[in-house]
C-alpha cells in the first residue's frame, strides 16, 4: 500500500492543503481574491528562487553532468506534441488549431508542478539532483514552437496581418516573462555559485516552502474559478488531462533513468513530462494562434492536469520511479 501512503502524505502537506483551500474559496464564492500584483510578485519570486538554486547546483555539479539529461528532456518536450496532436485531432475531434494549441501545452511544462515535486521529495527525504531545474528551463519552449508550427500548417490559408507570425511565437517562447526569469536566474546562480548563494539564501531558500504554500492558495482560487468551464470542455478532454500525464510521467521517469539520473531526478523528469504549461504556453499560444479557443487549453492544463499532478500525480511518478529503480 506504499502508493496510498505516498499520496496521503502529499495530500496533507501545507502546499496541497492550501491549494484545496483556494478551491473551496472559489467554489463557495468567498470574496477572497489575491490582487494581481501579488500573484505576479509570487511568480517572480518562485521562478527566480528555483532558477537561482538550479544555477548554483549546476556550478557545483559541473555542466558536464547536466547536458545529457537536459538534452533528453528537451527532446521529450519537443516530441510530446507530435503524438498528442493526432490523439486530439482524431480521437477528440478537435479542430487542427485547437489540437495544436493543446498539444503545445502538454509538451511544455509547469514550473509550479516542478516545484511541488521537489517539495514532495524533500518532505519524504528523497535526495535529488538540484540541477534538475535546468531540465525545467529547457523544456518550456520547444513544445510551444512545435505546437505553433503544427497550428500554422493547419491554418495557412488565413493570414494577412502579423498576428500570428512564427516570429511572435519565438520571441514569446524565448523572452516571455517566465522563461526569461527562470533562465536568467539560472545563469545568475551559475555565475555566482556558492558564495552568492550564501548571501541570498535566507530570502530565496529558507522561506521558499511557505511562499509556495501561499502561491498554491492563490492557484487554487484561480483553478476553482475555471471549474465551471469543465462542462464546456467535454469528457474527452477531461480524460485526456489525466491519462496523458500518467503516460508522460512514466516516459519521463524512464528517460531520466536512461539519461543517468538518480531516483529523485528521474521522478522530477517524470513530473515535468507529465505537467502541462498554464503560464508560458497560454501567453505564447494566445499571441501566435489567436484562433485557438483558450477555454480548451486553459481549462485542461489549469483545472484538470495541474490539480491532478500536485495531488495524486507526483506521488505516483515517484512510485513508478521506485519500481523502475528497484
Amino acid at each position, binding site marked *: 500500500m506504499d502508493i496510498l501512503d505516498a499520496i496521503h502524505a502529499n495530500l496533507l502537506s501545507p502546499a496541497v492543503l492550501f491549494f484545496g483551500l483556494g478551491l473551496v474559496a472559489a467554489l463557495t464564492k468567498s470574496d477572497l481574491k489575491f490582487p*494581481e500584483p501579488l500573484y505576479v510578485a509570487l511568480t517572480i519570486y518562485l521562478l527566480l528562487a528555483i532558477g537561482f538554486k538550479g544555477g548554483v547546483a549546476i556550478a557545483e555539479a559541473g555542466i558536464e553532468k547536466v547536458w545529457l539529461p537536459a538534452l533528453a528532456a528537451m527532446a521529450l518536450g519537443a516530441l510530446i506534441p507530435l503524438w498528442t496532436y493526432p490523439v486530439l485531432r482524431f480521437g477528440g475531434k478537435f479542430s487542427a488549431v485547437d489540437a495544436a494549441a493543446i498539444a503545445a501545452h502538454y509538451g511544455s511544462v509547469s514550473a509550479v508542478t516542478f516545484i511541488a515535486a521537489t517539495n514532495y521529495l524533500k518532505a519524504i527525504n528523497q535526495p535529488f539532483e538540484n540541477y534538475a531545474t535546468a531540465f525545467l528551463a529547457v523544456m518550456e519552449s520547444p513544445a510551444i514552437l512545435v505546437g505553433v508550427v503544427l497550428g500554422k500548417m493547419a491554418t495557412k490559408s488565413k493570414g494577412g496581418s502579423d498576428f500570428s507570425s512564427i516570429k511572435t511565437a519565438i520571441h514569446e517562447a524565448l523572452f516571455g516573462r517566465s522563461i526569461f526569469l527562470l533562465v536568467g536566474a539560472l545563469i545568475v546562480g551559475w555565475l555566482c555559485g556558492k558564495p552568492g548563494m550564501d548571501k541570498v539564501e535566507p530570502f530565496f531558500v529558507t522561506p521558499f516552502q511557505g511562499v509556495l504554500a501561499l502561491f498554491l492558495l492563490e492557484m487554487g482560487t484561480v483553478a476553482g*474559478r475555471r471549474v465551471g468551464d469543465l462542462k464546456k470542455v467535454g469528457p474527452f478532454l477531461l480524460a485526456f488531462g489525466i491519462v496523458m500525464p500518467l503516460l508522460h510521467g512514466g516516459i519521463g521517469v524512464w528517460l531520466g533513468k536512461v539519461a543517468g539520473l538518480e531516483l529523485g531526478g528521474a521522478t522530477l523528469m517524470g513530473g515535468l513530462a507529465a505537467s502541462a504549461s498554464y503560464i508560458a504556453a497560454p501567453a505564447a499560444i494566445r*499571441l501566435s494562434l489567436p484562433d485557438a479557443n483558450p477555454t480548451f487549453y486553459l481549462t485542461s492544463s489549469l483545472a484538470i492536469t495541474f490539480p491532478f499532478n500536485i495531488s495524486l500525480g507526483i506521488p505516483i511518478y515517484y512510485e513508478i520511479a521506485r519500481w523502475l529503480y528497484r
Partner: protein
Amino acid sequence: MNTYPMKLVTIVCEAYAQDTVTKLLNEVGAHGWTLFAVEGDGSQGKRPADIKEFANIQIEAVVQPEVADKLLERLANDFFPRYAMIAFESEVRVLRREKF
C-alpha cells in the same frame, strides 16, 4: 477657449491583445493612447483579472474622425473575430487640435 471636435475610441480587450492593438493605433495614425487594467464581463464570460495573463485592459485614444473610422474598420475585420473585445467611439472636444 476654442475647442475642436475629435473622436475618443475606447477598446476593452484581453491583455494579450495589447501589443497588436497599440501597433494598430500607430499604423492608423493615432498620436497617443492611454491604457489601464480592468475587470469585465461579456459574451465570453467573466474576466476576473486574477492572473495577469488572463486579464482585461481598456485602451483609450483621442483621434481625428478619419483615424477613428480606419481604426474601427481594422478592429472589426482583424480583431473582433479573434479576441474577447469591444470597441466604441464618442465625441469629445480638445484644445490643441494639432496634438491629435
